[in-house]
């Protein structure tokens, strides 16, 4: 007896959204040289259009869109599913990857007729590979398929870290690779246990079948542990700052803005989609406690950094902490868990755009000044007003000042913690905001002071505009209408509509 094919209208878009960057990788690799860049940039509008089309389909259908590959329904076949949050993430990833691609043209362009270069070929292919991997992570419906996507993400991200080949970047890439491999194998062990217990890896089927048994808890713990190592949640964050700070700016923006969100997204999938039936308040509180520690440690370390890129990287450690507050604030079927959920997704998006904007600006700054030592920024704001405006706007969102996506996220988090009576989580939200203000202030104060500065080369307007555009999106998220939050609820198990 075969279960019916669950494919819905528009489902084919999901397959195309994955195959497009895969085809791009293949074409770029074969054609090589300048063509790699042409393919990568040429496909961006199509990728963006596909993401928007998926979002449109989900929003207009009001329910997730599904595609069963090979016409085989799960459990035997693999299904792809896009719900509200996947749709939003797909669009965000498309925007940031496109921005990073066009920004990187200045560094990774191959001159007409010039020889193929190592760094350019690697960058353009890995950029598309990250796109492919993230797309699968956002729409994958099968835990093993998601494992392959995680590996795809690892193999794409690690070479980007050491693309300039200096020994310290090689060491950073190696450390990152080992953490990431540990993360995937731990995740895979959990997958094996799930299959052993329930004979399926399809997320909705598992959600129907799981019960609170030791095997499920062990599988969940192993998978979560692995994903935390990949997401760099405290105390597994040690690999992140050197890896993200040493990569070229465009790669850092993608790594910090998107790649860590990939494994975080899977953590969300695991607890909110596979295991909603578990009463996981204890686990959620453990993650909350780690989040608190991450926010404080990351922020304090960010305050102590001398280099701008390292400061921004440590700020990522802190902001990842915020992401994990979603677990205590949205677990379970409560009135307030919807608020917590919105807060979590808003934090992903706000941080992705703000952090990408800041890393891109930091790259422009380092190119223009020839260094990124904060102490030697005196007068830089006057010489590079647009770059510092972007840094300031991104910082605004990190601090959580209105109007910005960061403010919305933190405001919703405060609401959820008050509504749920979990007052303790207001502490990290507020303290983290203050500390973020501290480190953003540390960047801006020397830059705004008087000083003579020699620019090695003024940055190109278009690259400044790309960074500024991302920062403005981070701000604009603060004005997100109610319809946006309704979209996030589509397909969420235990969402308000599906309760009772």
């Amino acid at each position: 007896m075969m279960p019916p094919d669950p494919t819905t209208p528009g489902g084919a878009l999901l397959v195309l959204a994955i195959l497009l960057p895969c085809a791009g990788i293949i074409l770029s690799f074969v054609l090589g040289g300048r063509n790699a860049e042409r393919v990568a940039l040429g496909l961006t509008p199509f990728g963006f259009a596909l993401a928007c089309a998926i979002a449109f389909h989900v929003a207009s259908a009001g329910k997730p869109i599904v595609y069963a590959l090979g016409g085989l329904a799960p459990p035997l076949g693999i299904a792809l599913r896009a719900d509200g949050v996947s749709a939003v993430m797909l669009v965000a990833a498309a925007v940031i990857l496109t921005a990073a691609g066009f920004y990187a043209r200045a560094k990774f362009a191959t001159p007409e007729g010039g020889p193929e270069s190592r760094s350019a070929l690697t960058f353009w292919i890995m950029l598309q590979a990250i796109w492919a991997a993230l797309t699968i992570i956002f729409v994958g419906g099968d835990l093993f398929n998601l494992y392959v996507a995680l590996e795809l993400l690892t193999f794409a991200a690690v070479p980007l870290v050491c693309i300039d080949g200096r020994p310290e970047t090689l060491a950073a890439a190696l450390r990152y690779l080992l953490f990431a491999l540990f993360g995937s194998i731990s995740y895979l062990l959990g997958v094996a246990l799930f299959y052993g217990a329930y004979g399926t890896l399809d997320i909705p089927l598992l959600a129907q079948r799981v019960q609170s048994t030791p095997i499920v808890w062990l599988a969940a713990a192993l998978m979560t542990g692995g994903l935390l190592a990949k997401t760099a949640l405290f105390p597994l964050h040690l690999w992140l700052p050197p890896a993200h700070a040493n990569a070229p700016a465009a790669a850092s923006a993608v790594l910090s803005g998107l790649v860590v969100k990939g494994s975080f997204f899977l953590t969300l999938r695991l607890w909110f989609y596979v295991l909603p039936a578990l009463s996981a308040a204890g686990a959620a509180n453990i993650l909350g406690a780690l989040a608190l520690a991450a926010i404080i440690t990351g922020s304090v370390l960010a305050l102590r950094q001398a280099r701008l890129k390292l400061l921004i990287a440590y700020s990522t450690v802190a902001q990842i902490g915020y992401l994990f507050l979603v677990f205590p604030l949205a677990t379970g079927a409560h009135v307030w868990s919807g608020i917590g959920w919105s807060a979590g997704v808003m934090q992903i998006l706000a941080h992705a755009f703000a952090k990408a904007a800041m890393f891109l600006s930091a790259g422009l700054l380092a190119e223009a000044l020839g260094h990124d030592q904060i102490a030697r920024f005196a007068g830089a704001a006057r010489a590079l007003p647009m770059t510092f405006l972007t840094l300031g706007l991104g910082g605004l969102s990190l601090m959580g000042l209105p109007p910005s996506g960061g403010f919305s996220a933190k405001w919703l988090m405060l609401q959820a913690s008050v509504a749920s009576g979990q007052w303790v989580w207001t502490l990290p939200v507020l303290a983290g905001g203050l500390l973020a203000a501290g480190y953003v202030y540390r960047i801006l104060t020397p830059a705004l002071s008087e000083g003579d500065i020699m620019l090695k080369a003024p940055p190109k307007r278009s690259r400044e505009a790309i960074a500024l555009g991302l920062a403005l999106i981070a701000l604009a998220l603060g004005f997100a209408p109610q319809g946006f939050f309704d979209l996030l609820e589509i397909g969420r198990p235990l969402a308000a509509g599906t309760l009772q």
Partner: protein
Amino acid sequence: MSVLPFLDVALALLVVGLAVWTIAARDLFASVVGYVAYGLLLALVWVRLYAPDVALTEAAVGSGVTGVLLITAGKRLGAARAGEAGPSPGLALKLFAGALALLVAGALVAIILILPDPAPSLAPQAAAAADGPGAGLGNPITAVLISYRSFDTMLEKVVLILAVLGVWSVGADKAWGAAPAPLGRRNPYGATVFLAQMLAPVGAVIGVHIFWVGADAPGGAFQGGALLAAMWMIAMMARITEPPRVDARWLRLALVAGPAVFLIAGLAGPLMAGSFFAFPHAFAKPIILFIEAFMLLSIAVALPALVAGPPNGRSE
């Protein structure tokens, strides 16, 4: 009373013993050799689990090609023996690592002992579906890899492309486009050349044989491709042939052939059978063999490229 349980226990103890050695050995190279031996024995364990397909993959990839990779790295790094990797860990870390390892292993043992009975299985469904998309394949594992879960298999081939590019990207800028360093010594020994000349053709035939029977018996593109890769590496060790330049068009075409053909076949699915990655019933077997043939090529080229390493600028 059968002898078989004793054999199993002896095998299990040996595997664990070699694993302990791999972790505990003082000397880097001794640890690597322990791991290679361990990989060999693991192939036997897989046979005992009724998984000859996996055993073949483990023997060729897990033990064979990985063994060469690790022995090469171990010997090169072993020359600069310990001490440069940083201080050895303190007692606190040792206790922590030991406790965590015990906790995880203990939990896993407990869980394995209480796995549900009867075990859930998709084997009957897979067999039932064999009338449909996996038509005519006697080896259910090939059917799973190329038909039911073809999407995973295709993506995994993309992972291999990325891994090859990742390995290449570690090289020096000025070396880009050149070939990796040769696998063999400058003046290969007579015995090496003789062995390669004898082994490589026979091995190639065996590799193709294992690929060909893979549709109905244990084997397939992975295992056959890995054996072909090993044979190519042997030929390179004897300097009968050299690692190709990383900008060679044929090399790149061969590397992407598997995923590219897979992707095109998947995209053509809606025209042929109404769904992406579906194959029309009547032609499923030839189509699957066609895809597998290109995957064989890609694997046979990718594994040696991964072992050969980044392009090497120095001319010999």
